[in-house]
C-alpha cells in the first residue's frame, strides 16, 4: 500500500524537481549565511558566472556536454536494472580510443574521415571496456557495481602506464601524448559561430554539444520507441516478467552495458577531440561520478538529464567564478551545494513528495483518481 503520497503526473515530472532544487538551494544558502557570507550575493555571482557572459555560458555548456554523456550512460544501464558506476573508466577508454585513432591516422586522413573514425573508435573501446563487467554480471554473477568500480581503477592505471611508457613523445616531460594533426580537432563554438558571422569568445565549448543532444534524442527513441528498448526496460523493471516474455536477460544485460559504455566513451570526443587535441592524464575529472547525480536528478529521462546537466554545468562554472569573485568562498562550498542538490533530488525526493502531495491536497480538493 502506498502512504498516500501520490502526486499528479505533471507535479511529479515538473514541480517536484523544481521544489527539490529550491530546497537544496535554501539549505546551501543557510550554510553560506552560517559562514558569514551573503547568500544572495553568492547566488547572484554564481548565476552571473554561469550564464551572464558568452564565455561563462560556453563553459557551462561545455561541462554540461560531458555530463549529458555520462548521465545518459548511467540511465541506460539503470533502465536495464544495472548500476553502472564505471562511467569514469569508460570515458577514459573512450578518450584513449579516439586518441589512438587520431595518433595513428590524423596525419593522413582529412577531417571528414578522421572525426567519424575517432567517434567510432572511442565508442568501440569504451563499449568493450563496459562489456567485460556486463559479461561478468550476465554469465558469471559478479555484481556489476563492484566490477565497474574496479574497472575504473584499471582504466586509470592503464592510461597512466600507456602515457608514461608508450604514448609520451621521446624526451617530453609532460605525461601526455603528442598533439594530433589539425584534422583530428572538432570545430569549437568559436569556429562554428564564426562561420555564420557571429563573434564568440574562445572556450572549450565545441561541436560535441550537438552530439550530446543527438545522443539524448537517440537514447529517448531507443528506450521508448524500439523493441530493443522495450525489452531492455522490461528486464530492468521486472526480470521475472521479462523471462516470462521470453526476453533473454543475459543478452539484454550485455547490450545495456555496451550501450552505456559507448555513451560514456563519447566524453572522450568532447575532451580529446574537442578540447585538448592530445591524450592527457585524467581528463575525465570525476564526470563519470557526476553522471550518477545527473541521472538521478534527471530521473533517468534524457530530457531531464539534459536539464540536470546544464544545472550541474552551471554549478561547476558558476562555482569557479564565485570562488574567484567572493573572498573567503572556496570551491568546497560549491561541492557542498552539489551535495545538497543530489541529496534533495534523490534521497530526499520521497520526503519532499509526501509534503508536496499534502500541500496540493490542502490547496485544492484533489480530484478523486481511480486506483
Amino acid at each position: 500500500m502506498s502512504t498516500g503520497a501520490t502526486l499528479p503526473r505533471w507535479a511529479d515530472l515538473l514541480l517536484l524537481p523544481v521544489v527539490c532544487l529550491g530546497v537544496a538551494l535554501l539549505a546551501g544558502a543557510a550554510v553560506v549565511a552560517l559562514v558569514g557570507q551573503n547568500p544572495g550575493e553568492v547566488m547572484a555571482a554564481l548565476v552571473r558566472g554561469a550564464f551572464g557572459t558568452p564565455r561563462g555560458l560556453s563553459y557551462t555548456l561545455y561541462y554540461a556536454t560531458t555530463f549529458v554523456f555520462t548521465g545518459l550512460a548511467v540511465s541506460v544501464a539503470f533502465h536495464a536494472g544495472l548500476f553502472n558506476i564505471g562511467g569514469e573508466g569508460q570515458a577514459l577508454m573512450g578518450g584513449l580510443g579516439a586518441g589512438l585513432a587520431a595518433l595513428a591516422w590524423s596525419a593522413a586522413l582529412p577531417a571528414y574521415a578522421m572525426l567519424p573514425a575517432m567517434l567510432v573508435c572511442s565508442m568501440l573501446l569504451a563499449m568493450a571496456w563496459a562489456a567485460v563487467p556486463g559479461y561478468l554480471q550476465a554469465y558469471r554473477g559478479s555484481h556489476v557495481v563492484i566490477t565497474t568500480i574496479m574497472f575504473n581503477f584499471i582504466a586509470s592505471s592503464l592510461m597512466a602506464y600507456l602515457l608514461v611508457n608508450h604514448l609520451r613523445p621521446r624526451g617530453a616531460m609532460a605525461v601526455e601524448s603528442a598533439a594530433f594533426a589539425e584534422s583530428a580537432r572538432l570545430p569549437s563554438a568559436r569556429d562554428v559561430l564564426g562561420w555564420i558571422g557571429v563573434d564568440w569568445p574562445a572556450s572549450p565549448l565545441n561541436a560535441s554539444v550537438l552530439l550530446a543532444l543527438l545522443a539524448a534524442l537517440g537514447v529517448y527513441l531507443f528506450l521508448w520507441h524500439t523493441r530493443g528498448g522495450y525489452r531492455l526496460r522490461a528486464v530492468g523493471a521486472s526480470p521475472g516478467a521479462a523471462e516470462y516474455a521470453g526476453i533473454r536477460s543475459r543478452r539484454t544485460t550485455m547490450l545495456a552495458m555496451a550501450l552505456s559504455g559507448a555513451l560514456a566513451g563519447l566524453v572522450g570526443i568532447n575532451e580529446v577531440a574537442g578540447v585538448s587535441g592530445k591524450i592527457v592524464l585524467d581528463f575525465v575529472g570525476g564526470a563519470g561520478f557526476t553522471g550518477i547525480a545527473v541521472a538521478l536528478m534527471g530521473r533517468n529521462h534524457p530530457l531531464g538529464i539534459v536539464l540536470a546537466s546544464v544545472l550541474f554545468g552551471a554549478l561547476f562554472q558558476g562555482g569557479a567564478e564565485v570562488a574567484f569573485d567572493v573572498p573567503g568562498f572556496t570551491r568546497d562550498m560549491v561541492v557542498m551545494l552539489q551535495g545538497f542538490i543530489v541529496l534533495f533530488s534523490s534521497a530526499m525526493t520521497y520526503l519532499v513528495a509526501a509534503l508536496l502531495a499534502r500541500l496540493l491536497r490542502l490547496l485544492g480538493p484533489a480530484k478523486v483518481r481511480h486506483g
Partner: protein
Amino acid sequence: MSAEPAGGAAAQAPDAVRMRGIHKRFGSVLANDDVDLRVRSATVHGIVGENGAGKSTLMSVLYGFYQADAGSIEVFGTPVKIRHADDAIAQGIGMVHQHFMLVDTLTALDNVMLGAEPGWLLGRAQQRVRVRLEALMQATGLHVRLDALVGALAVGDRQRLEILKALYRGARVLILDEPTAVLTPQETLQLFGVLRQLRDQGTTIVLITHKLKEVMALCDEVTVMRAGRVVQALPIAQASIEGLAQAMVGRKVQIGRSSSAVRPRGEVVLQARALQARDALGVVRLEGIDLDLREGEIVGVAGVSGNGQSELLDVLSGLARPQAGSLQLGPAHFGAQRWLDPQTARALGLAHVPEDRQARALVMDFAAWESAVLGYDHLPRYARHGWMRHRGMRVATASMMEQFDVRPRNPTLASSKFSGGNQQKLVLARELGQAPRVLLVGQPTRGVDIGAIEFIYIQLRAMRDAGCAVLLVSSELDEILALSDRVVVMHQGRMAGALAIADCTEATLGLLMAGGAA
C-alpha cells in the same frame, strides 16, 4: 456450537477487542470506513470479506502496522493506543501471518526466542525458553520439534510454531490471517482442533478468511466486511454460507460445478512424458510426470502448494528446463537437451497465465498498454522493423479492456494501479487474445474478488468450449471442482492420482493431496 463462552464468570468478562469508528484512508481509497468490531473474550471470531474489503487493514490497525485516521481501540476493557507491533504484543495480541515470519536457517527454538531472549547468555536463555515452551506445548497440544531447523519443517509444523511463538509472547488474542491457505484439508481439521482447544482454555481467536465453510465450521461469531465497511455481525447460529456470501459480495453469486455432460474427446495437443526436474539445490521437484492435454478439456491440477505444480507450469511453458523427459506440443517435439523456450511456446500456440501475476505476468511499472503486449511485442501489429507502434499497442489495449471489462478503462495507467482482478483480466485478455491451442493457467483467481472470479470462470469455460486445451493449477479445491473435466493430483512432485470429475469429492482429493492412496 455456542456463541456463549464456557463458564458463567467469563460471560461478564469485558470484550477481548473492541474497535470503534475505525477510519483508514490510503490516498483516495477508504480502506476502513467507520468500522466497529466486537470480539468477545474466549471465542473464535471470523472476519470474512472479499479481497480489498478491508479485513487486513483492520487487523493491521489492531496489530500496529498502521495507525487509524480516526477511531478507538479497547483491549480487555482498557482503552489502548497501538503504535507498533510491540504495543500490540504488550497488550497480549499475537498475529500469525499468511506468509510465515520465520527464519529458515534457525531452529524452531531459536525462532521462538528471537527478539524475546530472556538474558544475554544464549545457552542459558535457550534452556529457560525450552522449559517454558515444553510446558506450553503440553498444555496446548501444539507439538513441534524444537531442535529442527525451520527450513526442514513441514508447512503445518511451521504454522504451529508461529502460533506457539505468539502464545509464548503472552498472546491472549490470536489473529490468524488466512491460516488454511497452505494446508491440506486434513491439516486444516487438525488446526481447527487446536484452535478449539485454545479457545476452551481462554484464548480469543480472530480468524481472517474468505472460506465460508471454515467460518461455519469453527467460528462462534462472524463479522462480514465489504468495501471497507462492516455489513453484518452475527453469531454463527444465525449465519448460513449463502447468506454470508451474499453479504460479502452484495449480490447473489453463481459459481457452480461445470456441467457434467460428457464431451467428445478431442485430439491430444500436449503430451508430456517422464518429466523430471530438480531445483538449484538438487532437490527433486518433478518426478516421472506424464500428462496428456486434449482439445476442449480443462484438466485441473490439485495439490497443496509447493508440491511441484509451479515447477510443472514452468517446465511446460518453457520457463524452466527439465533434467529428463520429453514434450510433444502440436507438431513439435522437445527433449530435455533441447527444451522449448517461452517464445517458441508462444509461437506453437501455447499461452500461459502465470501464478505470480505481479512478478511475471505484468511489468508493474509499465503502463497497461506496454504490459498488454508483453511476450507479443514481435507481432506486426505492435512493432515494425524494430520500432514499436504505440498507436497499435494502445488501440489493442483499449479493445482488450473493453472485451474483458478491465476497470478503469485507462490504457495509460500504470499496471500496478489496477486491482488484482483487473490485472488478471488484462493478462487473460492478452493471452486469450492470441486464440491459443493450449492454455496454462496458474492460480487464476488468487487475489481476485468474487465478481471477477465469476467472469474469469466464464472466460476459461469459453476457451474450453472453443476447443482449447486448458491446464488449470489451483490451490483452491473449490476452483478445481468448479472448472475441471478431469483432475490430476500432485504430491511431492509426482502424480498422486488422476480422476474424472464425477469421481472427485473433497475427501478423495484431500487424501491424494496428503499422499494417501485413493
